[in-house]
């Protein structure tokens, strides 16, 4: 009888611990999923803009040959996610990367286009996104 009572008390204690820890664990798991989702979202976003940037390459005639130039993006980026509204499960994601101006000199337009390109200048950019209705929004 006494052993049963002890067992009941221990179970009660265990359930109490679970009730305290579980909601936090679920929230942490949600945040982790949203953060991972943002990383893949940003990777895709960076791929799209990088691919498109190369299409906007411009040529100009130099003293000797041609100069090809375009505004592209850094290979690396970093992300940060903040909870904006816990009730609505809204998050704000910040993607940090560099805008990079690439340039290459060649004797013909094709040679200039081939590269390899030099980095002329870089400037930091923060792109801010929002997570609503279960997805990151463009």
């Amino acid at each position: 009888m006494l052993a049963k009572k002890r067992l009941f008390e221990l179970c009660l204690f265990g359930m109490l611990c679970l009730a305290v820890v579980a909601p936090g664990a679920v929230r942490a798991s949600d945040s982790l999923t949203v953060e991972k989702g943002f990383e893949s979202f940003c990777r895709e976003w960076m791929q799209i803009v990088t691919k498109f940037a190369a299409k906007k390459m411009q040529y100009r005639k130099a003293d000797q040959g041609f100069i090809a130039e375009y505004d592209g993006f850094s290979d690396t980026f970093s992300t940060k996610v903040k909870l904006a509204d816990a009730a609505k499960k809204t998050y704000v994601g910040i993607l940090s990367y560099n805008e990079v101006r690439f340039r290459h000199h060649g004797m013909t337009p094709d040679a200039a286009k081939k590269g390899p390109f030099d980095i002329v200048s870089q400037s930091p950019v923060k792109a801010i996104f929002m997570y609503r209705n279960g997805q990151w929004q463009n």
Partner: protein
Amino acid sequence: MVYEFKFKDFVGKEFNKNPLTYLKKEENMKSKAIVLMVAALFVFTGCSTMSKRAKCACVGAAAGAAVGGTAGAIIGDMGPTHDNRLGGGIIGGAAGALIGGITGYLVCKDEPKPEPVVAAAPVCDKIVINSVQFDFDKAEIKAEYYPILDEAAAALQKPECAGKNVTIEGNTCDMGPEKYNQKLSEKRAAAAKDYLVGKGLAAERFTAVGNGEANPIADNKTKKGRMMNRRVEFKVAE
């Protein structure tokens, strides 16, 4: 005169022994419990500053200690004298901590540190906002998008940006007439400016302009590309 002491333990079982022995035992248990609590506190405090892998080992050890300790106490309590709870708890806790710690260490791996993207000296970044969607033919910013603009406002108020002039550029996709898109982009840039000024940022810092559909960052042939092109950029003057 002989006094007979009758004590009750924590579950109400009557305890009839030399009171000094009982008190010593109780004191001993208390001190052990305090030592365990202090140790747990050290473990958790230490965990917060560790690497991911060490944290996992730490959390695993703590969870293992809790489970092992409880199990050990239950097993220790099963004997006829019910007096091995503490011993069982300690042995179980230690074994649980060891198993949990090793498991936690093996399961998690430290993530490689990302290469720094931005230069060390603080620079006022250009800010791009994509997720603010406007209703068709509208330039009002809906309340649900305020957190994004609040983030932009906070960035523009940082010391490295303070007092610097900012050009707010509105951009559209290529759907619809060009002149219409030009006007729409101007209105959207102006709406973003109004919001920031409403947040207490100095109006004279901002110039709102519209690029229309002239400055895409993605292909207008796809729906995703068009969404990416409908954006507002905050360019800070050097």
